[in-house]
């Protein structure tokens, strides 16, 4: 019961932190949505823990803890991959911006006759 309460409150805290980050503009909806879903799932599985047991059994795990570890591992690998793609995209955008700024700067200098 103690673990259940602890997990419940931890999920609530995570959810509030994400909502607060979104409210203060530190996280945009695009990036907050995944974490919000994780927080809601955490609360849901704490309240209806039978759901988690059924899912674990369905997937063929002998222990539910293994199922949780495996799910979290998959989630973090996936989110890391996703963040890597965002990083590459931002990097490319930065490069394009730098190139455009440099070309515009040259154009301005040429127009000014410098």
């Amino acid at each position, binding site marked *: 019961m103690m673990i259940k309460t602890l997990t419940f409150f931890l999920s609530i805290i995570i959810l509030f932190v994400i909502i607060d980050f979104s409210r203060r503009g530190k996280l945009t909806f695009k990036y907050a949505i995944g974490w919000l879903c994780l927080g809601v799932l955490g609360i849901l599985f704490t309240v209806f823990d039978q759901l988690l047991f059924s899912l674990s059994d369905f997937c063929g795990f002998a222990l539910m803890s293994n199922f949780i570890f495996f799910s979290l591992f998959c989630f973090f690998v996936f989110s890391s991959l996703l963040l890597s793609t965002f990083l590459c995209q931002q990097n490319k955008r930065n*490069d394009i911006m*730098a*190139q*455009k*700024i*440099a*070309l515009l*700067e*040259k154009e301005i200098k040429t127009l000014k006759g410098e």
Partner: protein
Amino acid sequence: MNSKVLVIIPAFNESDNIVHVIENIESSGFACEILVVDDGSCDDTSSVARSCGVGVVRLPFNLGIGGAVQTGFLYAARYGFDIAIQFDGDGQHDAQFFNKLIEPIVADQADVVVGSRFLPPNLGYQSSWIRRIGIHFFSCGRKVIKVFAYDYPLDFPEPESIIEVKKTGARIVEIPVQMKERISGHSSIRYLKTLYYMVKVTFAILLRIIQTKKQVGDHDD
């Protein structure tokens, strides 16, 4: 037909070499516009180049050789150049080969001409065998300028760019050229790094091969 030719010189901390490089091009008497792309140098590469009376584009921060060269191609595409020649800022390339480099493009026999120091008669500086894949001196026509302005490989631009243009169906011709040792400074790829570089380049080339084919002309400048 008189082709409008742009010579792109990517330069990063090349204030010691850049004057010699520009002088080498100007003394060749080749009709072209010279553009130095200062890749966010910490030294006064831009002001030294500007004092020589050539065009200078200064990037706000270091993008690497690929980003610098792509800036040159963007400039070439924007101002309607017919041919762009990539010329190293460290003084290894020789402007006396410019005419040979653009001949096949002007004659419409090629879209890209690669100047190779390893084709006979190979009289000049050769570098280590392990680095040969990553060193070239090339010129390209309008079609390829457009391709490179849109997407120029940023990781290992020299070997990857050949694959990129090959995918567009561009015609590539290789001609022998003579190269020189760099005037001053040293290459960033030395000792064990050459081995590491070779492995990375191999992976990059393989990845580039499996990347989706890009169409020429599906972008603006």
